[in-house]
């Protein structure tokens, strides 16, 4: 990545490391987030996404490394940063026993927004995030999608130039997730930079730029398209019977980065140094007494999940319970 093309970084972190006792949560992480971008952290739970966000917002003190967020040295100037950012926590952190409007009013007062101005912004946010009809409902009785819209509205009340969203859509249905992302793009359009963590591939693909994280390190970072174009593997799909045994046989080979079953198909990542992956795979199947027909096998374009797997050797969604 060429850092000189855009000098406008909202987040700069160098050599960021966080240790909890012997456990290294984040290791030598370098992160540059350009202004106005939606920057995604993609990784399984427990890979250090939340820890990184907490260090960037000054909630955790890094064991090593330098952080600069919006020109402020963190964690030293964390208090000054609080006025400039919005933060949406992974767990719903507003008050269940306050109504939608009361929660917004509370946040408004905490940020010292003038009463008149605050009222105006609350009305505006309530209509933007379709909360008008629920404004007198207790936050604890809202659905997942409504809660998350409320949380976003609260995070935006202070009109921050930088938003941190920690797995904002983990408890939200697909339709609400799509709406949510539309709202993020609206914010981005208005000049808000957004750092968002996710373990959903479709969400990561929407980001301007993503970093693939695993075990506290960034394995790769670029635009989703560049990452998919430059994947370090051939993606081969096989359609046949006995996929389970075939998968087992292929998985043992060093040249196979991964083999994952998708219904009747087996999606196989073959190392880039194999020149003709189709031939090679057919040959391997032959050796394992599972001959394939030419029409059963084809090369396909890589998606983000393939990119993720090729960088980390695992499927993020399989490891949700680890965090």
């Amino acid at each position, binding site marked *: 990545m060429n850092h000189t093309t855009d000098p406008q970084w909202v987040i700069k972190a160098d050599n960021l490391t966080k240790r909890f006792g012997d456990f290294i949560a984040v290791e030598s992480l370098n992160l540059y987030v350009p202004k106005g971008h939606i920057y995604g952290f993609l990784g399984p739970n427990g890979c250090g996404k939340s820890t990184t966000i*907490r260090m960037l*917002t*000054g*909630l*955790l*003190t890094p064991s090593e490394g330098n952080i600069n967020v919006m020109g402020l040295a963190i*964690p030293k100037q*964390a*208090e000054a940063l*609080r*006025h400039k*950012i919005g*933060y949406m*926590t992974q*767990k*719903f*952190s*507003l*008050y*269940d*026993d*306050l109504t939608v409007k*009361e929660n917004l*009013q*509370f*946040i408004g*007062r*905490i*940020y*010292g927004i003038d009463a008149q101005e605050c009222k105006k912004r609350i009305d505006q946010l309530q209509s933007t995030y379709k909360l008008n009809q629920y404004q007198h409902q*207790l936050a604890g009785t809202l659905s997942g999608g409504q809660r998350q819209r409320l949380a976003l509205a*609260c995070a935006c009340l202070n009109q921050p130039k930088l938003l941190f969203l920690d797995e904002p859509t983990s408890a939200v249905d697909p339709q609400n997730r799509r709406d949510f992302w539309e709202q993020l793009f609206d914010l981005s359009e208005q000049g808000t930079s957004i750092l968002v963590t996710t373990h959903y591939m479709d969400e990561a693909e929407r980001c301007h730029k993503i970093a693939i994280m695993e075990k506290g390190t960034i394995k790769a970072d670029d635009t989703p398209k560049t990452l998919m174009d430059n994947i370090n593997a051939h993606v081969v799909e096989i359609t046949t019977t006995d996929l389970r045994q075939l998968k087992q046989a292929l998985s043992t080979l060093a040249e196979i980065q991964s083999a994952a079953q998708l219904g009747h198909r087996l999606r196989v990542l073959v190392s880039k140094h194999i020149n003709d992956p189709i031939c090679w795979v057919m040959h391997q199947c032959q050796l394992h007494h599972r001959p394939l027909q030419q029409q059963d096998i084809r090369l396909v374009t890589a998606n983000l999940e393939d990119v993720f797997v090729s960088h980390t050797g695992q499927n993020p969604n399989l490891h949700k319970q680890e965090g």
Partner: protein
Amino acid sequence: MLHTIRNSYMRMLAITTKEIKQLSRDRITFAMVIMIPLIQLLLFGYAINTDVRAIPVAIVDQSDSAAGRWIVEAIKVTQVVDIKNHFTTAEQAQAAIRRGDIKAALILPPTLTAKMANNEPIGQWIVDGSDTMIAGAIKQLKNMSLNDIMPSISSTQSRFEVSLFYNPEQRSAVNIVPGLIAVILTMTMVLFTSSAIVRERERGNLELLITTPIKPLELMIGKILPYIVIGLVQMTIILGLGNLIFAVPINGAICHLLLGTLLFITASLTLGLIISTIAKTQLQAMQMTIFILLPTILLSGFITPLEAMPTAAQWIAEILPGTHFMRVIRAIVLKGATLMDLIDDIIWLVGFTLIGLGVAAKRFNKRLD
């Protein structure tokens, strides 16, 4: 500068308003605010009483004399005992005590009239001494019945007249009701505030709060303000009802009473805040509250006088704000003292609050590590 103060005030107001709204929706807590003082007052006022009544006893009247019947009637009238049975021998009475049918028996010997004339002890109470409260009541009864009987029969028994019979029921209430304010305020104030911040942490609200510009001290003060009002309401309930039901006099000036209580409330609240910065869960906060509450009940002079305790216990007691307030509230309510009379205790309460608030604000870290 003005802007900073305004923002600081707004943030405290935000916390206080939020806290009041949450309280008004938390029916159980709200009920506790009213019910704890109410129930405790009635419990301590009526049930927990040194004036023991209706102890089951038996009579062994071997004298079969008019004087004997007089004495039995006089004992009945005291209502301290409930005569369950009459036996003819002391052995039968002892057996009944052993079985637990009765707690005591009065044995009047055949020579009753002669003993009365000779100024000797006229009868014998045999008592189940395992319960000291009952034993004590019977001991008192011995004096009382004799005093009631003797003047009408013999004027030579004047040596028994030394005992002054105050109304035991009224006396314990008079002492207990003001003390109860200290105990109940310790219980509710420490409990409410100690869970206040822990609850935010448990429900995940804290992670949001610490990413906002709120300062620890603003959060602490904003959180305790509503509970100060609650504490004053509880004091009013206890003293008001104590005055109505148990005729506890309020001799001191109301402003001294309010100010003294206010100081104790803030001291208790800061104690709760310190707990809330240590405890990780509401259960832990509750346990630590009990850790404070028990010494307050046992050592503060609420039940037994401080002077009767070993020096080490007194030393511990003096650390607790409850002990100081126990002295303050009793002196103001019962003796009509002013805050100036109690300046040492007042200074302790103020100092405790200021230091406590500082410690709590310092311990409350706006970081997660």
